[in-house]
């Protein structure tokens, strides 16, 4: 065992990379849940985003187009959830599960020809002086653009929910859909937009795993990240900045665990690999005492009678 081989600067830099897929998916789901919809299909939308992004960037040679395709892929899949829950008024828990089961199958069907292929790389940020700074450079200025997009998205969602009229309406719909409907807001239309935004974000998160974090395609490669993102929204009490904090915490656990595996710690690999999931449970237990922050209409079906 050689713990001195672990470089703290690299550790923090790779922690940010590991956290980004969780963050992207969680921010999307946060908006969905703020609108009063519980979409358990995050894992399915992520994996479909992962393969759509991977396939398009391999075919076109452009990672940017890949990420665009991933967002579209996630959003299109979320439309199925829209059909089930907003049009056919089906149970949201069951519909989310359906989305995940379908997405996992669909992605491995689409991904058949892409196993073992290397995707084109996305250029990392390179600002002449800043990136070369010791310690700060690699941590703050040496990442791919999508990582910064994730942080920017967190800020944007925070500002949108807090300061804009749109955010207020979204929250109203999520807190009390009947009252929002009575005030003349289009509950279903607003929810559809939120669900599609959530799908696009999950798709981006998935593509981040297949294009940057790993980068290659294997079946079921999201391995529960979508579910961790769902847990993260609870952890964050539906607040964007706390979601960022939480994502870094989970990213940290993942990276430290991987580093310990590489350093050959006496704990068996399998037990280290369990740790992110166990910590998710632990965090959920600690935070589940306070449910007051959850949007009041979360998971309830809305049917306008008049």
């Amino acid at each position, binding site marked *: 065992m050689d713990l001195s081989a672990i470089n703290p600067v690299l550790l923090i830099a790779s922690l940010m990379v590991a956290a980004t897929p969780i963050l992207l998916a969680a921010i999307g789901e946060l908006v969905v849940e703020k609108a009063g919809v519980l979409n358990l299909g995050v894992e399915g939308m992520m994996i479909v985003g992962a393969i759509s992004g991977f396939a398009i960037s391999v075919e076109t040679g452009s990672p940017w187009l890949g990420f665009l395709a991933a967002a579209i892929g996630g959003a299109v899949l979320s439309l199925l959830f829209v059909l089930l829950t907003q049009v056919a008024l089906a149970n949201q828990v069951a519909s989310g599960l359906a989305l995940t089961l379908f997405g996992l*199958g669909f992605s491995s069907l689409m991904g*058949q020809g892409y196993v073992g292929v290397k995707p084109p790389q996305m250029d990392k940020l390179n600002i002449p002086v800043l990136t070369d700074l010791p310690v700060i450079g690699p941590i703050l200025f040496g990442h791919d653009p999508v990582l910064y997009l994730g942080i920017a998205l967190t800020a944007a969602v925070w500002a949108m929910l807090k300061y804009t009229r749109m955010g207020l309406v979204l929250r109203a719909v999520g807190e009390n859909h009947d009252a929002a409907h009575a005030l003349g807001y289009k509950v279903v239309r607003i929810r559809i937009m939120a669900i599609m935004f959530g799908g696009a974000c999950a798709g981006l998160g998935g593509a981040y795993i297949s294009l940057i974090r790993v980068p290659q395609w294997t079946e079921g490669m999201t391995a529960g990240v979508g579910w961790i993102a769902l847990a993260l929204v609870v952890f964050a009490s539906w607040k964007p900045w706390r979601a960022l904090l939480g994502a870094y915490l989970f990213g940290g656990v993942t990276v430290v665990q991987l580093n310990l595996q590489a350093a050959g710690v006496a704990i068996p690999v399998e*037990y280290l690999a*369990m740790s992110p*999931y166990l910590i998710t*449970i632990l965090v*959920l*237990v600690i935070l589940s005492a306070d449910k007051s922050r959850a949007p009041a209409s979360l998971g309830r079906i809305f049917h306008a009678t008049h």
Partner: protein
Amino acid sequence: MIVLEKRPQPSQAWSMATPAVAVLATMVFGGVLFAALGKNPIEAIQTIFWEPLFGEHASYYRPQLLIKGAPLVLIAIGLSLGFKAGIWNIGAEGQYIMGAIVGAGVGLAFYPLEAWYIFPLMIMGGALGGWFWAMIPALLKVKFGTNEILVSLMLVYVAEQLLASMSLGLLKNPQGYGFPGSRNLQSYDSAHNAELFAGTGMHWGVVAALIAVIFAYVLLNRHMLGFHIRLTGEAPRAAKFAGVHPSRLILFCLGTSGMLAGLAGLFEVAGPAGQITIDFNVGYGFTAIIVAFLGRLHPVGILLAGGVMALTYIGGDIAQSKLGLPASAIQVFQGMLLFFLLALDLLTNYRIRAARKEVA
């Protein structure tokens, strides 16, 4: 304009018809999918639904129907109890793995002793393993109000890691030339869940599944606890006034479904699978969710639905070898089925009407 009008009571006729309509719709859209993959859709559908039952080699495939159907029915019966009451155990896959690990562990602990009591002890071990794994989300939900969906699912990943660790370490076959995986229980008579009648596919797991169906039917129709389960799902407020203890219900529903999933795992590892390996679990715990909904959460319905899903597994295997249909296409097919079921449920609870133009 079309409007939805809520029915005063769910339509019985549609409730019975939706699973059949959903299967038909899935066949049509599945056919489109297979055509898009460059296969003859009619041939593919026929291979999946007809070949295993009445085809040339049906005598080989029919027993498979019981082997694949039993774990699905066993798990789905347990899940349906919780789903009825709004308690969502989606970690059956993990409980299935734990049942197999504990059950096989009990059996292997006795190796090479031959005795009649080993297999019953293994059954108890399997049930306890699954029960214990499901009690984690149950107790956390009761004590702290933690979301059982997320906890039970996280525990699937933990169980998969444990499975890997077991097949590489503790339960590894000492005479296996270093290959991962436990001793094969099929060649250990006292622990082998053998066919009860040769060539039928009938093993103890099938018997257990049938008992579970009867048990669930009696529970839901003739027992106070079953009434409480249905009441909690259909009218939570009324359930409160009727004196239903939510925590007792959570412990019972999650515990029972975990136990049944654990049993399914034990019967699989001691019978058809034979040994603990890294890729022992094949997703029965997740497919059982579809089975539970396809059976409309009704015990008899689940029995039939388990048969249909088993058919898609076997037919899918045949289509894979005969037509080169990818294995994941069947997974998509099964996912589609759940979609259509949920969407068509609309017709059970609502009436679709053409809206009259109202003059403001």
